[in-house]
């Protein structure tokens, strides 16, 4: 059984790596098309793309297992025994027919260990990043009970913090330096982040892009970060009823920033892109899951349809190794 699991894991990894490679090659063309889409839809498609390598790996493993699962459910004849024993089989029901990999057990344990270690490291990194914000939220919690909390500080802060139950933190200092429509725009923008659970989206994208190549990882994350900000800007524009108030609030907040901080930071391009978009007419609104839903459904149908060929092709390939 360890050999079968190891072979399945290897298939998943090879398909994930191939998907990451293809994503890298197709990136310029696909990014160009995504830019034209409404920001909510773009954000969802980018999140799906961030998860495409692990998703493709899992779908490949599922494709290999479909014949066994259909047999177990009584929907298909026991194909591996029908085929005879002229080559080995990737079969859950008859583990003895699987090719044997030497030292499969220790290899599998090593892979599982590496995976668990990587996940724990990433989890710790994320927890550490959120720690100071959680403390800030606690200190603010006593000032106002609802999910927008005012920080009694002169420093400019407007942020949405927390994964499952996000909270909006806005500082008194920021609100007092904006005129009322701009202050409403900031609050509406952050409320949109809270409703859309954007911190969770960003954390999910961060985890999903782990299997992408570094250049694609950065590009995907940057594009998603811009898309979620744009979606919140549009929501704020609709709520305040004045696109220019949102643009003015962005500019005013940008001018409040403390002097240049060390480190790479973002360049001005995202701010410029956001303001330019607000100066243009309101974009058409469509379903944000349009595209992402059909892409997932298409992938699943393709896996089911191609499963027998994929399954037997792999068995033949393994028979030659």
């Amino acid at each position, binding site marked *: 059984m360890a050999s079968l699991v190891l072979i399945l894991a290897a298939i998943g990894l090879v398909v994930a790596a191939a998907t990451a490679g293809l994503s890298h090659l197709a990136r310029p063309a696909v990014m160009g098309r995504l830019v034209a889409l409404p920001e909510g839809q773009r954000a969802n498609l980018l999140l799906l793309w961030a998860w495409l390598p692990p998703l493709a790996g899992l779908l490949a493993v599922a494709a290999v297992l479909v014949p066994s699962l259909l047999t177990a459910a009584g929907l298909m004849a026991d194909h591996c025994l029908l085929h005879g024993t002229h080559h080995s089989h990737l079969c859950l029901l008859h583990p003895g027919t699987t090719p044997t990999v030497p030292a499969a057990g220790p290899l599998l344990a090593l892979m599982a260990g590496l995976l668990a270690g990587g996940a724990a490291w990433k989890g710790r*990194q*994320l927890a550490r*990043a*959120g*720690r*100071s*914000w*959680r*403390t*800030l939220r*606690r*200190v*603010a*919690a*006593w000032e106002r009970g609802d999910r927008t909390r005012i*920080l*009694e*500080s*002169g*420093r*400019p*802060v*407007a*942020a949405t913090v*927390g*994964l499952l139950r996000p909270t909006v933190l806005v*500082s008194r200092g920021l609100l007092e330096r904006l005129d009322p429509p701009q202050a409403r725009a*900031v609050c509406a*923008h*952050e409320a949109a*982040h809270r409703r859309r659970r*954007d*911190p969770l989206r*960003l*954390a999910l994208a*961060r985890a999903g892009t782990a299997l992408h190549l570094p250049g694609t990882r950065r590009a995907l*994350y940057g594009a998603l970060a811009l898309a*979620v900000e744009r979606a*919140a800007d549009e929501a704020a524009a609709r709520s305040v009823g004045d696109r*220019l108030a949102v*643009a*003015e*609030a*962005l*500019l005013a*907040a*940008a*001018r*409040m*920033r403390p002097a*240049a*901080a*060390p*480190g790479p*930071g*973002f360049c001005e391009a*995202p*701010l410029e892109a956001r*303001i330019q978009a607000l*100066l243009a007419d309101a974009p058409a609104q469509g379903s944000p899951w349009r595209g992402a839903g059909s892409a997932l459904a298409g992938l699943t149908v393709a896996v089911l349809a191609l499963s027998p060929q994929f399954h037997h092709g792999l068995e033949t390939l393994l028979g030659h190794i």
Partner: protein
Amino acid sequence: MADLRLGDLEVAVLEDLWGAGADHAKAVHGRLGGRRGISLNTIQSTLERLYRKGLLERTKEGHAYTYAPAMERERLLARLIEGATAPVAGSDGADTLLTAFVDFAAEQDEAALDRLEALIARKRSRDSEGRG
């Protein structure tokens, strides 16, 4: 200080002392202990932790310590905000679990901001002419 972490009870004790000014553990326990169902010991160790973190000062009066906040709320908030936003500058903002209205860590380019301001103003005046 950048890595300052405070639990719920620590924040509650700080809030209490911000209100009371200075007090000893028994008085703090009298105000918080019953409501939260916690012992005097727990309050004492929380006060001790906050003292070690530099958030409380203490003076010995008889056998007991009197604790007072070492900084006002606004100053603590400023330090927490600094601590929370600092990693954004160092890690390209990607590892934090928040979305900020604008990236406060990004470098300022006054010329670009002036240009954007002029664009907004032009659009604003065109819009009001269109309406007028």
